């Protein structure tokens, strides 16, 4: 029998992968990472995509300086 699981493949750089893994840990009961493929690829569940994108936005806001006009 073949088990099928639909998910999303994420390609990213090394620090971002760590970020997503940490996010995964924080989500404790609702973990979304299905497989940790290699240093730059992750396989996660589809519902978690939006969450990851939102958190990334937040990270960017924090780290990028916008000069006031």
């Amino acid at each position, binding site marked *: 029998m073949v088990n099928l699981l639909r998910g999303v493949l994420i390609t990213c750089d*090394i620090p971002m992968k760590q*970020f997503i893994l*940490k996010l995964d840990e924080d989500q404790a009961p609702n973990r979304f990472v299905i497989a940790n493929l290699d240093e730059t690829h992750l396989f996660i569940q589809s519902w978690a995509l939006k969450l990851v994108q939102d958190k990334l936005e937040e990270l960017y806001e924090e780290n*990028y300086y916008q*000069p006031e*006009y």
Partner: protein
Amino acid sequence: MNGETQCHKVRKRVRKTAFKDVETKSQRVEDGQENDEADTVSMPLPKQALYNFTEGGEQNNKVISKEHTGIPNLEDFAYLKLKVDHERRPLWVCPSGKIFLETFSPLYKQAYDFLVAVSEPASRPEFIHEYTITPYSLYAAVSVGLETETIIRVLERLCKTNLPKEIVELITSSTKTYGKAKLVLHRNIYYIQSHSSAVLDTLLRDPLVAECCARTNAGLLEQKNLALMEGKNGLVQRDDDMVHNIARALEEDELDYSCFEQKGSKASSEVLGIEIIAERVEHVKRRCIELDYPLLEEYDFRNDIRNPNIEMDLKATTQVRPYQEKSLSKMFGNGLARSGVIVLPCGAGKTLVGVVAACTIKKPTLVLCTSAVSVEQWRHQFLLWSTIDEKNISRFTADIKVKKDSGWLGSVTITTYTMVAFGGKRARESQEILEEMRSREWGLILLDEVHVVPANMFRKVLGVIKAHCKLGLTATLVREDERIEDINFLIGPKLYEANWLDLQQSGYLATVQCAEVWCPMTAEFYREYLVQNAAKRKLLYTMNPNKFQTTEFLIRFHENRGDKIIVFSDNIFALRTYARRLSRPFIYGPTSQAERMRIFYQFQNNPALGTIFISKVGDTSIDLPEANVIIQISSHYGSRRQEAQRLGRILRPKPRSGQHFNAYFYSLVSTDTQEMYYSSKRQQFLVEQGYSFQVITHLEGMQEERQNLAYYRKEEQLSLLAAVLAADEKEMEEEFVEDSDASGDVSRILSKDGWQLMKRTNRSLRKLSGADGLVYQEYDTAKAKNVSSIFERKVIHHPLFRKRLAKK
């Protein structure tokens, strides 16, 4: 119109409150509670200086809301009508006070000179400059001689649209009172001078000012001989050349020339003055500021008989550059010395400007610096550029106090801010020296690195020291705490600000290639970064192994070219780790003076030593003329001035054939961390000055080199990570640089080699036990009798005796 009456009302309301404040303050003064110690009463600011644009605004100014364009605070000035020949004119003047100058316009040069005199430069990249008109900048304009009509007329001529009403209002109201009264010291008597008797009447009507006037003649004195002293120039030297250039450039007809000229000739004949009692000068100055008539201060040093001249001249070999001359001409405009601030980039020769000013005035000079190193540097420069005798320069720092026969102070005294402003207890010698400083009448006080010193320290210093002329020197007039406005009124207006790009193009500053190099974090480091607290995070992104590799790569690259490299790091842990791993010498706080000198000497003269690592101590004025590459691996949170100052370390032109950029500034940042944020913030200042920052995401040739670079292997990286996580609180802190030991006179005995591991004092046991300074102390013996012996006490508190001696 409805709009107009509305703003009229608003302004009236503001005025009323201004007067109320003034009244309550004078009440307090009359109660006799005024303190003579100037440092405890803060210097007020004129009410006009707090002019708020939004209050008097026209109803027409629509503010476009954020939803339309996504940019906050967009204002729509489309209602301003363009003039017919607007293409010939170089300026856009906005009702909010911002001015935009097109540098590609044929009138650029003249307009630029004018704008620098009248407004504050906000941003000066290559094609469009941005300036802001503020009350402060108008104050500065007036003090160099520009009058209300001139300013308005010239702006009108140069502007593409009709000059907005708000601007005209601002200029009129600001310049109405500034520059109308002047404080002059002539033949050892202080006078308040003015062209118009109306102004003097207003001042005299105020009871406080009237109190301070000398009572030799009742009422006003007409000083005809003063008028003769002024000569043809009138109350304030007018910058006629500049105005004429503009008029000529605009090809206006003869009629318009005359409007610029007539004021001057009429004004020269009458100059009225009131004499002021010498001791009350400070009070008068303060009072006039409160009345919105800030006094221009000018020092007539040529006719000052009371203070003897010093034998000091510029050496014949000294070459003064054109921009230095220009800045000095703004200061010595009409033969008198004006107080103010001169802004020149680092490495452009500020010290020379100070030396020339001192040689011109030729009166006792006090130089205040930020650190002991700068003290040495100033002394060196004085000896280098002027003919002053070595014995006449005295230094006063925690380490050095040399007594002369005539007292402690020579004709030129160099010391640090902390030595003068220190409020606590001092050693006896320091106290004596300070007393001498306090009692002396200084001709010139030079304030180095004016932007660094907090405003309160200034107030203290300026309260303690009496000087006729104050000159502030700085490279950057931006401060994170925005207290820069206070300096305007504590020292004086900004006399001159140089344009960094211009200086670069003329070859006085090195052309600098600024780059931000992005270093990605490694997986393990980033993992830890996400979970740790703020302090550890900082350490983590600084100690990023990729950063290590980048640093090593850059060092190798530049050393192969023969460049001299300085690596800056604020964080000591990082500094030590990097330097040790890369086997280069490093300098930080505890490094002894001898060691520092040795390293610098090697750095400058030995081709084998191409790189040194320096901590925050390198930020303060140490002269390192031979470096042309700076790599920054860690820095203080977002401080703009720090970045600008570091750039100053290398901004010394080094002739190198065939290359456009002869200096390099690398700022290494770890991506996806807070460092990115701070880095962009700090670059803002430099970007506004016209430097462009290039972002380098990938260094060519580095990938191949990787295995030869530090921390390539995983095990090494992990052990580094472990070390970082284990670093305790103390090591992680940034270095606290104590510039001079204000807390006591700890003289350091320099060890011959190696670092300074302990401080040795060569004082007596008295000092160690805290008895230094005590001469006589009486003990109240009567009281002592009343203390019962321990055996008789009811309750014994000391645990050691409690059990044994307690009464049952």
